[in-house]
């Protein structure tokens, strides 16, 4: 059992834990604070807290969720004076449609066929050119949208666990992810040339 090995001071177990989560932690930290240097600090502090806190971890959440919650709390504390760190509570009750309303005719149908994103036929993914712009597009989102899309889509954490990590309701998580993806799509669309 990983947790027992960690508590017993098994260095290999800890090295494996770092390998598994460090990249994702750094990615998420970068979405929460304004500078790379601060993100690096936050990740390092997180790991030290993990090492110190192993005995107190009660297993109410998964080990991963626990580690990411430490990271999020650290980032919020450290970034409290940073412009990039915005409280998550100030949530989007305003209507922000996924697609510019002018794309639709009066009856709610597409005014003209929406622009398609270039795809790479072999992989079934976006074209390499568009993929090269993805992180830049994510970086331009609001902090709360950026944190959610980073965890859900870049790291691949399930919705329920993201809610736990970020202290979000299920509904808010869905809205943030939805807006984030729509904005990333919109950011990529000019790169393929808008039709119509």
């Amino acid at each position: 059992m990983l947790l027992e090995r960690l508590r017993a001071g098994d260095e290999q177990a800890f090295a494996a834990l770092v390998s598994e989560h460090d990249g994702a932690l750094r990615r998420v930290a970068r979405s929460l604070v304004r500078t790379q240097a601060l993100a690096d600090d936050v990740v390092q502090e997180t790991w030290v807290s993990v090492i110190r806190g192993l005995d107190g971890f009660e297993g109410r959440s998964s080990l991963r969720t626990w580690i990411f919650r430490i990271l999020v709390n650290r980032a919020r504390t450290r970034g409290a004076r940073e412009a990039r760190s915005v409280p998550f509570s100030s949530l989007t009750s305003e209507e922000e449609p996924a697609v510019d309303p002018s794309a639709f005719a009066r009856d709610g149908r597409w005014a003209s066929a929406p622009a398609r994103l270039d795809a790479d036929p072999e992989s079934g993914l976006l074209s390499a050119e568009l993929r090269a712009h993805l992180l830049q597009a994510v970086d331009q989102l609001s902090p709360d949208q950026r944190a959610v899309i980073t965890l859900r889509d870049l790291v691949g954490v399930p919705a329920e666990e993201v809610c736990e990590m970020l202290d979000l309701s299920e509904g808010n998580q869905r809205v943030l992810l939805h807006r984030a993806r729509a904005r990333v799509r919109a950011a990529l669309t000019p790169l393929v040339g808008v039709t119509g």
Partner: protein
Amino acid sequence: MRLPWRRHHKHDPLVCREFVELVTDYLDGTLPESERVRFEAHLAECDGCAGYLEDMRRLVGSLHEVPEPPPDEATREALLSAFRDLRG
């Protein structure tokens, strides 16, 4: 279980403007059954929305394929050393 078309009649048919707002829930499998039926009915008859959904699938798949930042070996060594000091 009522016939799907009967339940269907209680709603206006879905239009594209609504479709795009349901895409995330659809991909997450969290649309209620009646909404999913309307969503898929519209999907079957609208090329614009089918393309939009396919692009969103590709977008999400592509985000997941963005490579992780490379490991920072110096930091990793420092962490292992901290682990030895604190737990050894």
